Each structure stands twice: as C-alpha cells, then as structure tokens.
C-alpha cells in the first residue's frame, strides 16, 4: 500500500466540534453525512427486527407469534423503513459525505439546506415511528393502495403514513436540488462532466429522478390524506372514483424510486472495482450513459407493477416491452464491471468482496426482473413470494451489499481508522450465505402459490420447508449484521490507523487527510484527467502498462491566505425549520384540536425560515480568526459558495 505520509494518530476534532449542539447546528456536509449514516444504520436494525418478527411468524404454518393486525403493521413498516429510512438515507449519507470531496469542493452548494434535509428526514422518521405508541403503526402496505388506505378514517394509522412520507419527500426534494446544484457548479477547476467519478454521475441521475418523481406521489398522498380527513372523494368509488389513479400516481413515483435505491450502489461499485483491480473502469462513458438511460427509461415502465389490474392487453404489451428494454442498459453495466476486473490484479479486500457479490446477486435480481416483463408469467408471479425474492435480490443483494461495500471502503476516510478485515470477511460470508438462504427459497414459494402479505398459511400447501429455511436464513443475516455493528463500533477506537490513502485509490477524496479537515482540501486540486489522484501517483510505460511515478505529481491551486479558509457558520435555523414541519405534521394528524398545534408549528417553521434567510453567513471567530482582508472570499461566502475557481 502506498502511504503518502506517515500518520500515527487520528486528528482530534476541531474545537467547537464536540457536543450535541454542534451536531444540531452543523452545516458541514461530512458531519451531516455521518448523521445520515448513523440514522440509517439505526433504522436498518429496527427494520431488520421487524423482518425477523415476520420471519418468526412464518417459520411454521399457522404461526401464532403475531396477530394479523400486528403482522400487517410490521410488514408495512418494514417496507416503508427499508425504502425511505434505510436505503435512501444510506445513499444520502454517502453522497453528502463524498460529493464535495469527489468533486474537489469544500462543501455542497447550499450547506444549510443540506442540514435542513437531514433534520426533515429525522423528523419524518420520528413521526412515522411514533405511530407505534400513538394508536398503531400504518397497516395498509408501504404502497398504500386506495381505497384500502382511505377505508378506515377513524384510525390515524394511515394518516401517519401519508404525513410521514410527505415529510420525507420534502427532505429528498431539498437534497436533490442541492446535489444537482453542487454537481453542476462546484466542481474543481478541470473537473469536466466526463471526468467526474461514476458515483457522482449516478448521484446526478437519482437527484433528477427524485425531483421529477416525488411530485406525483406527493399529489397522491395529499389526495389520500384529504379523502381520509376532509371528505374529498378522490378514491371514493361509490362517487365514481377510479382506484387505479392511485396506482398510476404511486408507481410513477415508485418505479423511478427503485432506481433511486439501486443507482447509488451501482456508483459505489463502479468506484471500488477499479481500485481493487488496479485498472480504470472499463467503458466509463458506457457505464455513465447506461445510468442516464436507466434514469430516462425508469419513467416509462411503471405500469409493470399493474399487469393484473386490468389495463388491457395493448397497454400491458407496451409496458412489457419497455420493461424488457431497461434490461439492456442494466446488462451493459454488468458486462463493463466484469470487464473492469478482467486482466487486473484483483485484491479481495472486504469492500471488493462486497462489490463482486453485488454483481453476482444483482444478476439474479435482474434476470428475475426480466421474467416479470413476461406478462402472462407475471400474472402468476405478481404479489407472490417470487416478487419478494426478486426485489430482495435487487435491494439487499444489490443496494445493501453495494452500500456495505461503500462503508468498508470509505470508513477509513470518514474515521481515520480501518474496519477490521477479519471481522469484515466473516461478516461478508455470513451475510451472503444468510441472504441466499432467506431469499432463494422465496422464488419457489411464490411459484408454488404463496401470496405476499399473508400472516399465516395452511400446513398442507407445501410451503413449510422453504418458509423454515427462509426464517433460518433471516437469523443468519442478523448474525452478519451484528458482526458489522461490532466491527463499526470496535474499529472507531481500535481500528488500524488508515492514513490518507489506505487502498491506493483513484479519486480525490483520498488526496486529503483521513478524516478530512472541515474545509476538505488545504488547496483545491487542479484536475487534469479522470481519476486525477491516480494519475498523480501512476503513469504508463511505453507499452501501456501501469508504472508508479518516482514522486507523486499534481497541481494545486494556491490559497491567497492558507491560514484563513472561510467556511459557512453553524446554524440552528435549519433544524428549527424542520422541527416546525414536524409540529405541523403532528398537528394535522389530530383535527380539529390539532389545528392549533399545526398553527404553532407553522409559526416555528416561519421563525426558522425567516431567521435562516436573515442570518449572516460569516463564521464566528472559532476556530479560525475572522478575516476581512479578503473581500472576495466574503462575497463568495455570502452566496454560500466558497469555491475558488
């Protein structure tokens, strides 16, 4: 391993970086990223416990561990949690932490908006989970099909779901706008679009996907909430409503959302494979453009979730073909990843094992996805355990394994210490085996006729064996996750010191210290090529083979005053604004008295937004002295752009 400098200790955090208040008021993208990651890990454990309870109930036929009511709440919350409170914020955590570092920037475009996104996400998660103690959690499925979701307005459960998702949607919209602005405006000099890391490209794609798809579910959620609370008739079939409207609105969001969940993992894998193969990504432009193609085509396949709903064979044939077509760009990515490893020198480190397993498992999920486009076959598979198997191969075998790869890869950068490789490899094999034990049998269960979302099944249906195997597999996964948690916590204090560049990596985040200083780079890099950091260390010999440089090279843009780099000040207004949103959310759940609470929440929200917009952006004297010798930096900071081009 090429260690740039001898590092024997991890930096102590800068003054003013300790204590709860510093976390609440931080606008540092790295700390916000860490908040996202820890929150997502917490929800991952909660969602996993829900899954284990579900699996325990299904361990034997006619299980009696859970009531039907509890079961319905748990599978609804398991799905909602894993999608909105685990995979999305995990990806968001990586994007937050890494985006400016990968771009050679000092922060995101709108640091306080970034903090606001996190706190709204946090409030939305708390709101959803508080339902467990406030009358029962949502029980109509994460997809909330109307008119089931509007049927019992007496219970507040599905109101929690609607308000919770609306709140989380605000967080996603804000961060998407922020990421797009960051990518388009904050790149280091020389970082052209086609020199950006693939992870950044995928972030750009998912940000646009969210920006365009969230409005449709927002409309739908408002309709459901209004039907339940204000007597509107959007989904009242007796008044002539058509419940398929909800399905269209939901899946027009829901399918792009699937790509929102998987593309970040694809981006992570596209960063990791080249590093541990010592080769550049094979077919960079094809990987990038296939990601963009998936983004566009992702808006044209939503009705394949509705092949049994009665759209008619013409529409079904159209969506079948568009669904098949989306397999083409997905296949391109897989072939290019294998091409990246081919002919390299593959180091089977823990992040690499996860990245390779991601490919292997995602292929299975991708192929079973193609079988869903075969409409006649899909009429058998739809809403059966076959579908459960399929999307767990995509979302666990794909997204979660990819995100695990990312955690093992970037943990040293974030903490300054390595995760234990020994524990990591144990966790890898246990998780991989447990995963396949859990979800491979579900293909059989589905084809053998077991429908989803059923809290019990008879003993003479032939479902016993595979359900038992799946439950055992679930607990094997849990063991793997336990090892992971131990590893993360143990390594924070006892992990091997990482140094700046422990993996001999390719991208700019490894050019700064681990963990990076608040301002990321002492000097902003001047970028000359894709994988610029790699080319600072390596060159090609006359025959095109890799050759290490005698001395690392590289251009940096000198700071006018390296002692005083201006960063945006901490602010409690983003968190206050988010708190206001949460109070409004609770208020509207309990009308009519709650309207008073909602009004108070609206005032808090306005207080936060007003204070935020009037707040000066200059930094308080700690830790760096206020400095007025550089009016141009002041001006830049005032627009929240500390980029110096």
């Amino acid at each position: 391993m090429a260690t740039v400098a001898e590092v024997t200790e991890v930096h102590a955090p800068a003054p003013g970086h300790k204590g709860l208040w510093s976390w609440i008021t931080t606008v540092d993208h790295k700390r916000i990223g860490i908040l996202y990651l820890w929150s997502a890990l917490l929800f991952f454990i909660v969602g996993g416990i829900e899954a284990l309870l579900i699996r325990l109930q299904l361990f034997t036929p006619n299980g009696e561990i859970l009531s039907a009511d509890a079961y319905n709440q748990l599978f609804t919350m398991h799905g909602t949690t894993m999608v909105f409170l685990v995979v999305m914020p995990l990806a968001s955590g990586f994007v937050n932490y890494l985006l400016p570092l990968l771009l050679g920037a000092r922060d995101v475009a709108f640091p306080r908006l970034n903090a606001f996104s996190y706190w709204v996400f946090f409030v939305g998660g708390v709101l959803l989970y508080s339902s467990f103690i406030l009358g029962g959690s949502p029980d109509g499925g994460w997809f909330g099909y109307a008119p089931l979701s509007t049927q019992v307005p007496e219970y507040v459960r599905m109101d929690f779901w609607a308000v919770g998702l609306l709140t989380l949607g605000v967080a996603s919209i804000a961060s998407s706008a922020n990421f797009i602005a960051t990518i388009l405006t904050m790149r280091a000099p020389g970082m052209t679009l086609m020199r950006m890391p693939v992870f950044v490209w995928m972030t750009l794609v998912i940000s646009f996907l969210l920006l365009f798809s969230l409005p449709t579910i927002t409309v739908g959620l408002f309709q459901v909430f209004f039907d339940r609370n204000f007597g509107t008739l959007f989904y009242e079939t007796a008044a002539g409503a058509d419940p398929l409207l909800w399905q269209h609105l939901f899946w027009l969001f829901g399918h792009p959302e699937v790509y929102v969940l998987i593309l970040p993992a694809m981006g992570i894998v596209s960063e990791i494979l080249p590093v541990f193969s010592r080769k550049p990504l094979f077919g960079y432009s094809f990987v990038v453009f296939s990601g963009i193609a998936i983004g566009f085509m992702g808006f044209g396949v939503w009705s394949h979730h509705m092949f049994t709903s009665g759209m008619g064979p013409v529409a079904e044939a159209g969506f079948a073909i568009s669904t098949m077509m989306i397999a083409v760009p997905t296949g391109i990515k897989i072939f290019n990843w294998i091409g990246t490893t081919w002919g390299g020198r593959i180091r089977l480190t823990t992040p690499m094992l996860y990245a390779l397993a991601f490919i292997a498992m995602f292929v299975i999920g991708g192929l079973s996805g193609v079988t869903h486009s075969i409409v006649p076959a899909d009429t058998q598979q739809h809403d059966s355990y076959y579908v459960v198997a399929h999307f767990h191969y995509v979302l666990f075998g794909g997204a979660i394994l990819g995100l695990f790869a990312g955690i093992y890869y970037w943990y040293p950068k974030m903490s300054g210490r390595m995760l234990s490789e020994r524990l990591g490899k144990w966790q890898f094999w246990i998780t991989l085996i447990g995963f396949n034990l859990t979800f491979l049998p579900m293909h059989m269960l589905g084809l053998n006729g077991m429908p989803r979302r059923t809290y019990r099944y008879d003993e003479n249906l032939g479902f016993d064996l595979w359900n038992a195997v799946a439950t055992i597999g679930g607990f094997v996964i849990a063991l793997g996750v336990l090892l992971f948690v131990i590893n993360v916590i143990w390594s924070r204090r006892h992990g091997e010191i990482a140094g700046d560049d422990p993996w001999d990596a390719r991208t700019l985040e490894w050019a700064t210290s681990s963990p990076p200083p608040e301002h990321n780079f002492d000097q902003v890099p001047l970028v000359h090529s894709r994988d610029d950091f790699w080319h600072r260390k390596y060159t090609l010999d006359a025959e095109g083979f890799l050759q290490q440089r005698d001395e690392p090279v590289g251009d940096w843009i000198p700071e006018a005053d390296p002692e005083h780099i201006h960063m945006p000040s901490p602010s409690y207004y983003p968190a206050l604004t988010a708190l206001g949103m949460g109070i409004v959310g609770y208020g509207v759940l309990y009308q009519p008295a709650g309207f008073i609470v909602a009004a108070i929440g609206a005032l808090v929200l306005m207080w936060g937004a007003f204070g935020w917009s009037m707040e000066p952006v200059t930094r308080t004297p700690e830790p760096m002295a206020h400095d007025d010798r550089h009016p141009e930096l002041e001006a830049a900071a005032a627009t929240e752009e500390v980029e110096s081009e």
Partner: protein
Amino acid sequence: MAARVRSRLVLGAVLATIALAACGTEEVPQNSLDPAGPIARDIDGLWWLVFWIAAVIFVLVQAALLVSIFRFRARKGDEGRRIRQLHGNTKLEVAWTIAPAVLLAVIAVPTVATLFDIRAEPTGDDVLEINVVGHQWWWEYEYPEFGFFTANELHIPAGRPVNLTMTSDDVIHSFWLPRLNGKRDLVPGRVSNLTLFADEPTPDGEFLWGQCAEFCGLAHADMRLKVKVHDEDGFQAWAAGQAQPAVIPTDGPAAEGWEIFKLVCTACHPVAGTEEAQVRLAPDLTHYGSRSWFAGATFRNTTEHLAAWLRNPGDLKPMAPELNDLAADPPRILGMPNFGLGGAEVDALVALLQSWE
C-alpha cells in the same frame, strides 16, 4: 479463499438441485408450475422458455465473473505484475448492447402473443358465465344462468370455458387460482374478466386451491379460494340443487335455529326462498349445508368449526366488526360480530345451517 468460494458453489448447486426437485410436486395444491388447464399450461410453457434462457445467461455471466476473480486475483509476491490499462472496447460494447436487445425481442414475440390469448374473453354457446364479487374477506358467486348465489366455494364444469365477470364491493382484491390461470384484480367501480378452463374434474373431496392475492386488509391471508371441478352431469346436478329455495324447518332444533336466525343473522345474510332474509351484505346461506368450506374458504365446514365460529367468529379469523357501518352508503362490513350466543343457541343455529343442504 478459494476453498470458501468452492464451498459457496457447492452450496449453491445443492440449493438449486433441491429447488428444481421441488418443482411440480403433487402435494402443492396451489402450484403455478402444475397447470390443470390449457390457459395455465400456456403460461407455464412461456415461463419455462424464459427460465431456461435466463438460466443460460445466469451461468455465462457468473462464470465470467468467477473466472475473472480466480484468474486475476492478487497472489503473494506478484505485486509487480504488469497490468495493461484498458479503458474499454467499443466493439465489445456494441456487441453486448445488441445481443441482449435481440434476445429480448425474441422473447417479446411469444410474450405478446400469449398475452392477447389469455386476455381474450371466451365466446361460444358453451361458456359458463359466473359473476364474482370480492368482499372483505370472502367471495360471492352468482350463476346468472341458473339464478342463484353462493359463496367462497366455486363449482365449475370441466372441459369448457368459464368466464368470470368480476368486481369488488369494498377494496381491491385479486382472484388467483394458480393451477388454472394467472391472477386478476377485482377493482371496485370496475369490471374485469378472467377465463378458467379445467381439463378434468377434481377427485372426490379434493379442490383446486387459490387465494386472494391483493392485500385487502386485516384478514387478507384468510380470503382463500376452493374450486370444485365437476364433470358436466355432476355440475348440472349440483347447479340444479343450488337453484332450489331453502326449506324452512318446522320442528326440532333447526326450527329453533330459524327463530334465532331471523333475529340475528338476517341483517346481513340472504337466504333464497325466505321473506325474512333478503339483505345481501354477507355470504348467501341458502345451501350452506352443502358446502365443504366456509369463512373465506379457510375452514372445513365441520360442526366443530361452525360452532366455534358462531360462539365467536373472531376466534377463527381476524376481523374488525367494530368498524361495521350498515347505515353507510355503501355499507362498510369488516367481518361478523360476536353476538354472544349461548351454547343452546349455537347448537340450534348449527342444526339450521346444516339442514340447508
């Protein structure tokens, strides 16, 4: 490392073998891979075609990945290995873009053809029409040709098409009888069709199994389907019997049951041939005694089950009758309440219901 990967391969192979061995076994009554009619057989054929294509691609891709890992993995002492820095290969890219596209186009042809086949409504004089209404959490069947209603247990003839015309009274349900056809949703305010065609009658005492496949609330798991396939004579005989009005008993415990029935049950349950029981909000009980299954076709229609049900329906099946609103338009029915019937009353009602054969 290599040993670990090998053990993983062995495990995968074992699992795959078990999985294949389990396909189409007899004791799986809801098995979509065990078709019992031409429509399900078409779907099954298409499935296996796509399965084997997918299996070949699976093997090729995983093999390429594993070969790359084994061949190019780092070994001790080869840190200086010379690595050519390939950035891509346009010919390869074009090839692996076009090849899958062509393959998918090939799959698309039988997909679309089969799709239009299975969606076509059957025509001809021999089609049996049945109207299906989905309710939380039971099925209502009307045989317009014969003029009667029944519930949960569907009876059809073998050897000719049955056209189900389906809708729902409350939320979305989905009719799934895997051995005869794929599933089809029952959407309130909409009408959908599903064709069933069974090759052969089911043996005595046996049924085709299915269940509701669209999550429809609390007792979704207990909204099941049992289908009896008769030969033509048997079907005609069954239908003729069902078309008869119920006989009101005049003496014995069944007559006592009728007095209780009039007070308690007629608010929701219809019985043909009576003046008292004409509200159609719950399963038609005209020939309840002839059925093998009840309560969403979840339980065998035995004396013990029926008595337990009448004592407290919630003991057998999760429901939410506290949310029933019979005055609403449309009425909201989420299950049968516990009427607090005593032992004698239960026995009398059991006698009544069993007398309606």
